[in-house]
């Protein structure tokens, strides 16, 4: 049944979209957008590492993304200007990754497949990895949901209630690294952060609680993934960027809706 490459692509896109949505909510609530950028750009270094050492790509990316995320989360905990620091890390990681991949001897690597993903080439094994990782992210978030929310609102408040905000930060870091490792095949290192942030931001006007926002984000992310896949087949455009373009279109509609909402309410 999974012989059809379009079906495999659709399932891969859905897996990434569904797990990225709730994680993306935390990324924007905690203002970690740059954090997501830096971690996903580091994925390219992971690719270089994997190619150089014959590790599976997913393992290399997971390892490097995890190290990157831990380094950032330690550094930004101190009083270094986090915004500038994250900007530096995000772009340096990307540049270093590109250089590292090009330095690999005897390899002719198709860079664009790692930068933008190659969802149409997803194998059954890839699919198992993607859904395994997505499930791990979803379970981590579901397990720690309330503690994560409390720590997001105010670390001291979480601490006073017997929580451990540092542990919650680590759990988010781990979830982000897993997400990056499984999403690189689908949307590529450059656009992973988009799949985290855009559906979550699009969901905001429709939600009154964190949970409904996460559910809306999952629906919108899935819609973008499937819509983008169909559009790319129809118009022969690259799939990863098409998915993100659809997501961006939905965001524009949602923003227009939220801007018009007060006026609609007055009339209604």
């Amino acid at each position, binding site marked *: 049944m999974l012989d059809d490459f379009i079906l495999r692509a659709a399932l891969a896109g859905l897996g990434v979209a569904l797990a990225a949505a709730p994680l993306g909510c935390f990324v924007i*609530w905690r203002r970690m957008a740059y954090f997501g950028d830096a971690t996903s750009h580091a994925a390219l270094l992971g690719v270089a590492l994997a190619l150089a050492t014959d590790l599976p790509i997913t393992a290399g990316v997971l390892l490097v993304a995890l190290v990157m995320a831990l380094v950032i989360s330690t550094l930004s905990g101190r009083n270094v200007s986090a915004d500038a620091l994250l900007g530096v890390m995000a772009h340096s990681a990307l540049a270093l990754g590109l250089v590292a991949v090009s330095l690999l001897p005897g390899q002719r690597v198709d860079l664009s497949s790692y930068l933008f993903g190659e969802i149409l080439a997803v194998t059954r094994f890839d699919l198992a990895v993607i859904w395994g990782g997505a499930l791990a992210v979803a379970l981590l978030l579901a397990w720690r949901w309330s503690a994560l929310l409390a720590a997001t*609102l105010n670390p001291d408040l979480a*601490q006073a209630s017997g*929580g451990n905000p540092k542990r919650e930060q680590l759990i988010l870091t781990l979830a982000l690294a897993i997400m990056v490792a499984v999403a690189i095949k689908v949307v590529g290192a450059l656009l992973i952060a988009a799949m985290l942030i855009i559906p979550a931001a699009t969901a*905001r006007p429709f939600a*009154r*609680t*964190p949970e409904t*926002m996460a559910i809306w984000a999952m629906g919108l992310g899935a819609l973008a993934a499937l819509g983008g896949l169909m559009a790319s087949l129809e118009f022969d455009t690259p799939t990863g960027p098409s998915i993100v373009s659809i997501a961006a279109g939905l965001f524009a509609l949602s923003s227009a809706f939220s801007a018009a909402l007060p006026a609609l309410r007055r009339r209604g």
Partner: protein
Amino acid sequence: MSLIETRGLTLRHDRQVALRDVNFNIEPGEIVTIVGPNGSGKSSLLRALIGALKPAAGKVSRKPGLRIGYVPQKLQIDATLPLTVRRFVNLPRRQTPEAIRDALATAGVPELAERQMVDLSGGQFQRVLLARALLEKPDLLILDEATQGLDQPGSAAFYRQIEAVRQDLGCAVLMVSHDLHVVMAASDRVLCLNGHVCCEGTPETVADAPEYRALFGSGTQGALALYRHDHDHHHHHHGDACEGHHQETENA
């Protein structure tokens, strides 16, 4: 046994010593207020008591199973985070609808459960923070400058609410405040900090201490007179209050 006790507690903030050698304890049912100028280590002390700040030296011991209700100084809710009052007070633990109704009523905001947190006024917001803290069924309620941003009548009303809550629940209350006069009226004990404990005791003792006057000047003494006048009014210790008042007038 004390709810929380510190021995020789020293705290660092940004690599500098924020507070040194604090021996402090709070007993069940007590209301203790921490006063001190900005940067005197008040918030650092509270954060160490709740376990958010590791001591550089000394130790903090909490009674086993101690439940703390914490009302932070301010809570910035990002505009991207939708949050109703009902959802907020369910953090980090789910509460029953009855418990939530009771807590909101006790905190003086029974009608706000379905509102968005970002739509609340300053006073409503602080009361919702209080309601959430009450849902922890605290042995100790900790308030960090909880009336910052409230006007004078607003903060007076808030402190009356705290007093009523203590009467109701019998929990101890530890608060940091700048509203010296209101705070002193409500406290059993005052701890005055300035990088160390510069004086402590009953409100009268502290207000008469030279260390306290050096920090806050004589301007606050009028406020204390107000305190004594209040007590004089309610508890009929007329003579003492009068004496105190005269003494202050002379000193001022």
